[in-house]
């Protein structure tokens, strides 16, 4: 089974979120980048588990500049066989998805995996866009993925519940919690990652469809008002008269 796993970098969850250039750009100073957790913990690790039982290979792909090679090497250290970097600044989800779809057209993948969303833009867009660009079925927010016989069996999150589905490949799947457990790369993996193949591809000439023009930070919370545990009538009064939520 040949699997393509799409990875994105994202700032470490504890990073300070700030903006520069008149609030038009994310302030990267002092920010540590990691592999987007949904891409790493769920998509990549499940891909490796499938490869370990079924054979085949796992290729990771990202759209980004040379500074992204640290996160690529991390994904290779966890166990991916090879990597592809499409050399471009990812303008938006559409731009990213079409670049990946263009690459996937020329290769022969049975399965294309992404995380359910990135933790910086939270758009949940790229996987569905790749599926449409390649005219493939798309299983979103999958929490379980197996392969037996000639098709994939999956569970996916639907509003308020779970749906169990079956589909033949090739298919695009976005992965949510439940798929797999996090793997910590070991020293052998980290050494091996240094020499694994990394292919750098020139980007296709396309335009994005959306643009983040500015950012702002939500106003700081005023201090928490403390209420005595013996006076719940006071809390109810505040929720009604002051907060106006009941």
């Amino acid at each position: 089974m040949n699997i393509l796993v799409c990875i994105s970098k994202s700032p470490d969850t504890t990073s300070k979120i700030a903006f520069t250039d008149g609030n038009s750009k994310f302030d990267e100073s002092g920010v540590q980048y990691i592999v987007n957790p949904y891409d790493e913990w769920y998509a990549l690790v499940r891909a490796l588990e499938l490869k370990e039982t079924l054979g085949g290979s796992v290729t990771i792909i990202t759209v980004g500049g040379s500074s992204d090679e640290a996160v690529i090497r991390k994904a290779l250290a966890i166990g991916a066989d090879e990597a592809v970097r499409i050399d471009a600044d990812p303008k938006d989800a559409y731009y990213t998805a079409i670049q990946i779809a263009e690459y996937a057209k020329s290769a022969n993948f049975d399965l294309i995996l992404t995380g359910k969303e990135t933790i910086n833009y939270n758009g949940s867009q790229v996987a569905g866009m790749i599926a449409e660009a390649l005219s493939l079925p798309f299983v979103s927010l999958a929490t379980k993925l197996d392969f037996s016989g000639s098709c994939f069996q999956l569970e996916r999150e639907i509003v308020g519940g779970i749906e169990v589905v079956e589909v033949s490949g090739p298919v695009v799947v976005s992965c949510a919690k439940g798929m797999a457990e996090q793997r910590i790369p070991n020293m052998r993996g980290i050494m091996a990652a240094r020499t694994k193949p990394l292919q750098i591809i020139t980007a296709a000439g396309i335009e994005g469809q959306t643009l983040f023009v500015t950012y702002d930070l939500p106003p700081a919370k005023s201090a928490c008002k403390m209420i005595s545990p013996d006076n719940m009538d006071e809390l109810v009064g505040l929720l009604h008269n002051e907060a106006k939520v009941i």
Partner: protein
Amino acid sequence: MTVLVYFKANLGLSKVATEIVTYAKKIGEQVIVLTNGEADANTLAQYGNYGASKVLWDADTNTTDNQVLSRLIGSIAEQEGAKTIIFTHDNIAKAVAPRLSVKLRAGLVSGAVDLPNSEGLVKVNVFSGKANGFVKVSTENKIITLLPNSIQPEVTSTNCPVEAIKTDSGESAIKVLTTKKPEGEIPLPEAEIVVSGGRGLKGPENWGIVENLAKALGAATACSRPVADIGWRPHHEHVGQTGVAIRPNLYIAAGISGAIQHLAGVNGSKVLVVINTDPEAPFFKAADYGVIGDVFEVLPRLTEAIEKFKASSN
């Protein structure tokens, strides 16, 4: 300008659907609702009250499959000359909207929290709720998915006609084997009030006090990640970074410390109430109202106070 609104039909009037119809009416002159699956025509006609000029109802295409729905919605958008499509940001839209964005060459803004501003920029939450971004769509066709509870539904008009339509949107490549869905609960992302419990509840047998408070408030129940992981509560109740992100008017957290990953799922809530025995719990820093105390004493007292309040205001 014609705006197309899509939601999957359900039998009652859906609050999130009235929100997106209201939203569409504020950005366009004519609002057309497209829905599919099992529904009741009289209920569908009520979307006219929120600004729809007609409802197109495809009862036979009873699916949530993203490939089939993107064909259906794409062909109706073209037929009706709608250049803007609005969804609620649910699990259906997360799968269908990106497909349509490619199919129609329509820039997609997902998770909008407000109407477009005077410059046409649409506000969205980014960095898991820690910041806002303002997005410009460069294409003529546009798709916006709106987070629940971002706009107040407004009744501006009267019932509208409902047209039953028949379409051929093809077969689904994905075969649905079973669906596991609890009946009769308020779907968490749509709830206006949520009562949530954490490890401080000490065991699944103690959830009665959470449920009683939720019942008194007409609220949905939720839980923290550790509670779902150890199986005290079902996974669909888990709110946080890896679970569901919600933004109710009121979120009451009982026995939850408020780790950064939990906050990422609830920091869109308008008012946060935190009840915890530990005065050092990080959640108090994000809370509007805090109670330092034992959840086993505080929750029943709060439930009683709510019941008294409800009885006196009726």
